[in-house]
């Protein structure tokens, strides 16, 4: 009560490193919501009591008023904690879209709740609409380029006969290729290739 459980929820969030998160804690979330409703009921009953005693709502300063203020403040604090929890997770989701791309791997998808999955899809489509209006892919070139071509090693079987830039490549596992930076970046971000330095 009084914001304690909500701060536990937030502590979970802050224990993670930036850019990572745990599964959506639906149980604790639901409990905090129940607390909010309890606070609200108490608040309403106290306000009704003040009115029944015939005192003016704005200026009375008796214990009921202060009790009502405490319930009101705890409710606001719970609301802020809940919104911060959801908002921070949403920010991590946004950064994932930039890092990983339009499709999330299975492990991450399992940690999101239904509304977050929808939010990711919507946000991703808003980004794609912007990029297609400009005709520029903004998710490549995250690091300043040192070389137009980079040497990569294929980590997973991508497939034979992948056509990039009018040249077909045979991407067998553990094979080494020299590719154009922008073409290789999409595979690197999905973890299917790695860059060979040196």
């Amino acid at each position, binding site marked *: 009560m009084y914001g304690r459980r909500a701060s536990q929820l937030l502590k979970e969030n802050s224990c993670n490193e930036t850019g990572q998160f745990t599964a959506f804690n639906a149980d604790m979330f639901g409990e905090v919501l129940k607390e909010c409703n309890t606070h609200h009921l108490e608040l309403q009953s106290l306000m009704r009591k003040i009115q029944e005693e015939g005192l003016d709502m704005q200026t009375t300063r008796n214990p009921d008023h202060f009790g009502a203020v405490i319930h009101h403040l705890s409710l606001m604090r719970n609301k802020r904690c809940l919104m911060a929890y959801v*908002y921070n997770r949403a920010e991590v989701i946004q950064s994932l879209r930039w890092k990983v791309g339009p499709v999330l791997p299975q492990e991450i998808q399992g940690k999101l709740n239904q509304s977050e999955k929808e939010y990711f899809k*919507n946000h991703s489509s808003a980004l794609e609409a912007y990029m297609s209006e400009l005709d520029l892919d903004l998710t490549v070139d995250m690091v300043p380029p040192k070389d*137009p071509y980079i040497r990569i090693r294929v980590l997973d079987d991508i497939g034979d006969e992948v056509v990039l830039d009018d040249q077909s490549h045979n991407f067998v596992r553990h094979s080494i290729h020299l590719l154009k930076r922008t073409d290789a970046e999409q595979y690197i971000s999905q973890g299917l290739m790695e860059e060979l330095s040196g």
Partner: protein
Amino acid sequence: MAHGSEEGLGFSSEDYDSLIATTDVELLKRTWRNEKASPEILQFQASLVQRSREQIQLMEDTMEEFAKNGTDPLTVSLYQMDLDRALFLLRSYLRTRLQKIEKYFIHISKSELWNRLSEQEQKFAKKCTDYMEKHLQKSVLSHLPYGYQSILRQSISSEEDDMVPEPQLDTFVFCKSKGSVGAFQLDDSGDEIVDLVADDLYVLRYKSIKALIESEQIDLV
């Protein structure tokens, strides 16, 4: 776009510097640096972006011709490098702006910063706001009791919109002034006066030099 064309013409180094300073790549680099270092979103340079895209397109066409002619591969890869770097600048500039919009869309929609966005960015910001509102409504706000369901206010008894994340304008930034600005008052109380000489590096609060950046007398580093 390539810098090599100026070198063979026998310019003195001062002329060369001033000529270089006005090429589009330099302008783009400057705008990119300012945007990266500033905590709030700056004015969108529509004409610069348009010109850069046209030049990039020209370069790409030139590259295709080179590939057909079988020109010396070293020249080709040098031009390719130049093209890649210009593309990176453009992409990074647009990306930084988008990420700032993603963070502060509510604040931007409500203040005069809205006018600093390009048309496509405004559409993107509007969509961001809608989706985030929908998401928050669905997860949190619809379950809360009446009177506490607003996104912008803590409750209906709050006097103003107190739940809007705003960019921190007090952060310190490194800056260099291009020409001598002379004595400059740092804050309203007139306590601190800083003499801004050309090409000297300063560390100041962003808020105090906001106006100078907008009038392009100072660059962020």
